[in-house]
Structures are given as C-alpha cells and as structure tokens.
C-alpha cells in the first residue's frame, strides 16, 4: 500500500538555519496522524515543507508516490493537499461563504453542492454564512478554516495546531470534527500541543524532538508510554 503522504528523511529549514535533520513521517489512506513534540522541535516546519514554505535541502516528499518536493503552494493545492495554518487561516474580511468559495478557487465546477455539504458538516456556519469570518469566535473560525480547506475534497488535510488558543469545550468540538472529517474519508496529518486529546483521536503519532524523530507508535501506544506521559502528558500515564 502506498502512503498518501510520505515525508522521507527530510532536511529543511529557513534561510541558513536547518530545523529538521532527517525526519520521516508517513500517512496511510484513512489515517489520522498526529505530530507532537516540544516547542521548537520542528513540527510546523515539517508541515510547511510539504507546502514548499520552508527550504528543503535533502530528502523527499511524495504524494501517492509522486514527488512533490519543493513545488509551489498553489501547485501543491492543485495536487490535492490542503493546509490549515495555525494563525491567520481565514480571510477575515470575506464572509463565511466567500471563504468557502475561495477554498474552492481551483475548482471549475459548481461549488454549491460542496458548500452545502460543508454546512451539513459544520451546522453553525450555515446561519453565519453572510457574516465576515473575522467576526466569528475562535472555534467557529477554525471550522471555517477547515471547511475552506475541505472544499477541494483533498487527498489529505494538514492541520497546524487546530485547537491552539481554544477553550476546552471548543477543543473537544474540533477533535470531534477531525474524527468526522476522517470518517468521511479524508486522511489527516495534524500538529498538536494538546497531546493527550490529540493522541486520543489519532491512529498513529510521531514525537519529534530537536528536528528528529524520537518515537512513533499508535495513538493508544503513545498515550500509554510512560516516557511520553512524563514528557507531554502532565507527568503520569493516562488511565488505560
């Protein structure tokens, strides 16, 4: 089975600074994969590398077996990878519906059915569809950002810390939505700070430290790993 996304032995960074020193991550069809790690470990950099937003010096990124290393962002989008940045991920002066239309920019067919599907997936957005996205709450903005990214029915969805800055109530909501999106058939690669909840919804997880792979296991396996608990989950293994 070919991985949907395969990041192989990647060295990359910004300018002269190398941030990742040989990181390998893959996402198989149907999976939710989570990358966790301390600040500065290179989690977001790995994700940005897929989008040609950081400078790759070695290694390869493959989508369905095809090399997409260093491709310009709009080309990557056309290949079927959609990305939700951590901040500034909605067009604040555009209405919710216009955000979804922009999400479907590269499509040439009628966007209406897909927009309606998004309103079914994210019911709160339907009543706010004429409102500028900038006036929405943090959780709802995150929904707009995800719905916008899903407009292209991507082969894989990349989420950079989707719950950063959200209240616990909204965090649960976002993770539930992540699960729903995945159940509907879209593989997901996500970077997360809220490691415990994230691993709870993940099929597999990677732990990056100092720009290198430290651990790789199933979500359950990482949650039960005492070292991981020590490092990221508040000092004790979760009750199994």
């Amino acid at each position, binding site marked *: 089975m070919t991985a949907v996304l395969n990041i192989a032995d990647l060295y990359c960074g910004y300018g002269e600074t190398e941030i990742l020193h040989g990181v390998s991550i893959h996402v198989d069809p149907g999976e939710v994969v989570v990358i966790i790690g301390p600040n500065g470990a290179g989690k977001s950099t790995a994700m940005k590398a897929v989008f040609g937003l950081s400078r790759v010096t070695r290694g390869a990124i493959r989508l369905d077996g095809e090399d997409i290393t260093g491709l310009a*962002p*709009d080309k990557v*989008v056309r290949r079927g990878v959609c990305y939700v*940045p951590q901040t500034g991920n909605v067009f*604040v*002066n555009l209405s919710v519906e216009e955000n979804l*239309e922009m999400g479907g*920019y590269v499509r040439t067919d009628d966007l209406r059915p897909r927009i309606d599907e998004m309103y079914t997936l994210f019911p709160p957005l339907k009543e706010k569809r004429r409102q500028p996205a900038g006036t929405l709450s943090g959780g709802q903005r995150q929904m707009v950002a995800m719905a916008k990214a899903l407009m292209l029915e991507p082969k894989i969805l990349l989420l950079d810390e989707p719950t950063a800055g959200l209240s616990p109530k909204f965090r649960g909501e976002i993770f539930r939505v992540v699960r729903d999106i995945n159940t509907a058939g879209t593989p997901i690669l996500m970077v997360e700070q809220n490691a415990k909840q994230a691993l709870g919804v993940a099929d597999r997880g990677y732990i990056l430290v100092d720009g290198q792979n430290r651990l790789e296991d199933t979500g359950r396996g990482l949650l039960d790993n005492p070292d991981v608990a020590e490092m990221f989950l508040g000092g004790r293994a979760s009750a199994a």
Partner: protein
Amino acid sequence: MMEFINFHLLPGIVLGSIYAIGAIGVSLTFGIMRFANFAHGATMTFGAYLTMTFVWWTGFHPLVVLPAAMVLTGLLAVGMDRAFYKPLRASHAVILVMASFGLMLMLRSLIQLVWGVQIETLIPGIQRPIVFFDALRISPRHIMIIGGAVLLMIGVHYLLAYTKTGKAMRAMSDSPDLARVTGIDTEAVIRATWFIGAGLAAAAGTFLAMDTHVETQMGFKILLPVFAAAILGGIGRPYGAMAGGLVIGIAEEISTYSWFGTGPLVPPGYKAGVAFAIMVAILIWRPSGLFRGRVF
C-alpha cells in the same frame, strides 16, 4: 445658498468623483501588492491622452471612446507589471515604490515624446449650463463626469462583491500568504488588479481632462489628493477610496467658500493644501482611515 451649491458643492462633487475613481486603483494596488504606486498619476495622464487621440481619430464623444482607452491603459499596466514589478515581487515595499517612481518618469517622458508638451482641450468651446428649478446650474460635462463615475463605482462594486476574480482580490488583500496556500493564482489576481486599477486611472484622467484640459502633468498634479483619498478611506478599502475621494474633493471646493466675511476661507490657490491637511490629520489621528484599512 445657491451660490454655495453651484460654485462650491457641485464642483466639489465633480472633483470628488474624479479623485474617487483615481483612488480606487491606488487602494487596490496598495492592498494587494503592498506599495504606494507613484506611477498612478502618469497612468491617469496616459489614459487621458489615449482618449484624446481616439477622439481625434473618430470624432466621437470622449465617453464613447473611453472604454477603449481604459482597456489599452489596463493592458499597458499589465505589461509594465510583467517588465518592471514582477522581477521585484519578493522585494521590500520601498524598492517597489522607487520602481514606481521611475516608471512615473518614464511614462511622463513617453507621453511628452509622443504627444508633445502643449496643452490640449478634450471638449472645445464653452458649454451652457443646464438650469434646474431656475437656480441649480450644472454643465452637461459635469453631469457626464458624475454619471460616469457612478457607473464605474457600481461596476467596481459588482466586481468585488460578485465575481470570482473580485473576491480573490479581496482575499489577497486580506492575506497574500493564505491566498497562496489556498491555491489562489496570485499572479492572475495581480494582473487583474493592474488592469482594473489602470483602467480606472484612464477614466479618472479622462474625466479630469473633460473638466479642465489635457497636459502632461495633469495626473501628477492630482496624485496627492488621490493618495489622500485612498488614505482617508483606509488603505486596501476600495469603498473607502470612493468615499474618501468625494470627501476630499468636496472639502477642497467648499474650503474656498466665504464662510466668514466676504473673502474665501481658503484662497483658491491653496485649496490643494486642504487635501494635504486632511491626509496629515488622518495619518496622525486615525491611520487606519474611515473604513479600517491597513496600517503600515
């Protein structure tokens, strides 16, 4: 009272319409490419000369040939972008501003080379004003300028609110980075911005020429109030630019009314200073402008 309306308010609305149409292009360029385009004035001049040339060739009214002048000026701007701005796309805004300054000089020299430096008139002769209700006097050319400006504003609104290109322009004005990772063809959006901004500049230049005359510095002379209008409205806010243009135009004209005593409040020779004063005041007290635009 009628003196105020006929000689100050109406001319203010006419001038404001010209500024407004000119300011939309400045605001769009500023919002999407993030730099103040100094060549915009020369673009307006170029558009006016094209209109004049088409009038010479065809004998039609300026407003009839204006669409052709707008399209050609738009294409010129797209070409200039390809040749001069595109290689500098990743550069700092200051570099782009300097490049636009250079283009302004080149464009002005080109105009002088082709058409000469003498002053020309677009609509010859004196037109009798039309009188409404025995008191309201407005000349036909002023009605045409205001009418043309209103039509163009409606067009810009339609473009920005209902078309895919217009929405992508607003999206890119919001966040170029997000536009890129969303898959928006940012180069196509930039081309559209130049085309529309320069087309409108041609219209503003033509309106100005209809109101006054055609000369090689005409666009440069209104560049300051046009910038003031864009800043007053809020950078990157085309609707703000329309409102800002009207406010600046009306403010300039009514500042010369004899509000106190018998003489004008501001001598007509200094009325350009009014636009400057408004721009300075806005930058100090409300840099985001009336419509909450971008602050640099």
